[in-house]
């Protein structure tokens, strides 16, 4: 792919039905667009998708919007889309889950502002939320966040504050490095790179 290609982030939202992904991706390929990455998710029968695509310089922002509007016009479920031109230097390819990502789970009674309370803690501690999902089970609200602590204070400090925060808000919170979940659930062991030590070496 040449560097003259323009990069776009496109977001799609619709009630879920068969064929949405085909219609959207087909529209993009009709404009000679190339899909670099896609995430799609479903929630209570609603469909959302975010995708990164590159287009030849001849394709304008307006042309993409118009093409997606055509998809919406042909569809019996309204398709809401948003298109944003992005500077390639702003893109952090493959960095969705930084090395230092942790999994934070919070459980507690369902209430207004549950997510906001936890998100506020993250914001105040300079913790970036990279993934979030919630479920309700047995009247309890469960929140699973994948968070990036690379901008935050030391883990021991975050943990201390978190314990106090959990008490004050009557939540049960667990914070663990994401690697432990990968280690016990995946075949591969997530290990950080290190230099090989010779079995003949004695100077440590």
């Amino acid at each position, binding site marked *: 792919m040449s560097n003259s290609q323009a990069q776009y982030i496109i977001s799609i939202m619709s009630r879920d039905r068969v064929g949405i992904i085909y219609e959207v991706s087909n529209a993009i390929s009709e404009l000679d667009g190339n899909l670099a990455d896609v995430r799609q998710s479903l929630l209570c029968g609603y469909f959302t998708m975010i995708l990164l695509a590159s287009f030849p310089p001849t394709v304008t922002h307006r042309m993409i919007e118009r093409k997606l509007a055509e998809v919406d016009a042909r569809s019996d479920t309204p398709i809401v889309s948003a298109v944003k031109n992005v500077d390639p230097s702003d893109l952090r390819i493959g960095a969705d889950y930084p090395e230092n990502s942790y*999994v934070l*789970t919070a459980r507690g009674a369902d209430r207004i502002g549950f997510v906001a309370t936890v998100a506020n803690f993250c914001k105040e501690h300079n913790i970036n939320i990279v*993934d979030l*999902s919630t*479920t309700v089970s047995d009247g309890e609200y*469960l929140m*699973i966040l994948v968070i990036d602590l690379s901008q935050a204070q030391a*883990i*021991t400090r975050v*943990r201390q504050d978190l314990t106090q925060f959990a008490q004050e808000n009557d939540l049960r919170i*667990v*914070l*663990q*490095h*994401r*690697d*432990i*979940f*990968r*280690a*016990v*659930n995946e075949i591969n*062991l*997530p*290990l*950080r790179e*290190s230099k090989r*030590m010779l*079995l003949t*070496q*004695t100077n*440590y």
Partner: protein
Amino acid sequence: MIHPEEIFHTIDMIQKENLDVRAVTMGISLLDCHRVDVARTCEAIKEKIQRYAGNLVSTCDAISAEYAIPVVNKRIAVTPIAHVGAGFDVDGFVAIAQALDEAASSVGIDFLGGFSADVSNGVTVGDQALIAAIPRALTSTNKVCASVNVGATRYGINMDAIVLLGQTIKDLAEQSADSGGFAAAKFVVFTNQPGDNPFMAGAIHGLGQHEVVINVGVSGPGVIARALERRIAEAGSENLGLHDLAEEIKRTAFRVTRSGELIGRQVAQALNIPFGVVDLSLAPTPNVGDSVGEIMQILGVDAIGAPGSTAIIALLNDAVKKGGTFASQSVGGLSGAFIPVCEDQALANAVRDESLVLEKLEAMTSVCSVGLDMIAIPGSVDAATISAIIADEMAIGMINGKTTAVRLIPVPGKEAGEFVSFGGLFGESAIAPVRNVGKSSRFVKFGGKIPAPIHSLRN
């Protein structure tokens, strides 16, 4: 992406089911610490331990905080001291034990193993002085653990050494009578003792190992018990065969071992020293719900020690190894299910209720690791009978090409059925009756050696 169910399952393992890393043990070679006199040797030992292990505890704590998985014990294993102190007298060996204790305290670890000798095929002057020093060494220190290897599949069993050690165990218990004979809990007799075992009291840093290394012992009886209960509740026991339960144990052992492997490797990497092995042993603690005995009950015996108990232990032991081997790059140490009576509440209760007796424990040790472990017996049992119990257990190890061990505590002044408590991870138990006391003295008196077994005609 990790599925939310897997996330909650993993969190439950740690929060509710007692998943931890039982021991991170640093093995340190002390072979280069021998000096012209005892004082300088002690200084060299302390200096070397402090140099390598100075950051062991803080590193384990930091990595433990990162993953939120407790590392219960931080330990050190050293070169068997019989090699390091060879040439010194008994007083010299006692002084070395005290230097080891000081070093262990100064770096903040829980226990230090390696006040040890290997006499399976004969005894050197170093071995002799070390064995004579054991009672004083263990009663004048807090953190030092001792072990002697008296047998090997390759060399046979040194019965003369076993005769000596029967008396050593009596001496240890009597000289620590005020704590129920606790010093005997820090001493273990082995056959086929591994040189990379991270578990106490038998941890040593054997010959043929690295200069310094990190080995890890995982835990997990609680995790396996809960996984089995969940599986049985979901499927219904009428729909499950033992093979299904073995499969569940195997999968759970994979998860347990994985967390040990990850933590151990991170500790080794942070300290910039090699990672050795994960020991796949299923090590219980006196905590409720962290018991190998409870797993036996879940697998179908109403009383531990009832017929079927040995078969269950065999299944459990093998399934743990199968799951663990795939989870770890290098497995070693003892690697099997432990049945230490005092340290396992369900086993201790079974001894109290007399459903579990010494003879059945012995049978169970033929299909698991590691032997007659942490069993309180009456203080009146004589040294020769203890030696004969050791000989039986060593024979199982020698013939089957596996590690076996004996850690008995003849509790001074107490008889069968009475109660003794050692506190902490050492737990508590009723005192197990020993039958046929005094009936083996002619056998023990022969001494000498039980020859190494033949390796063909395996039946």
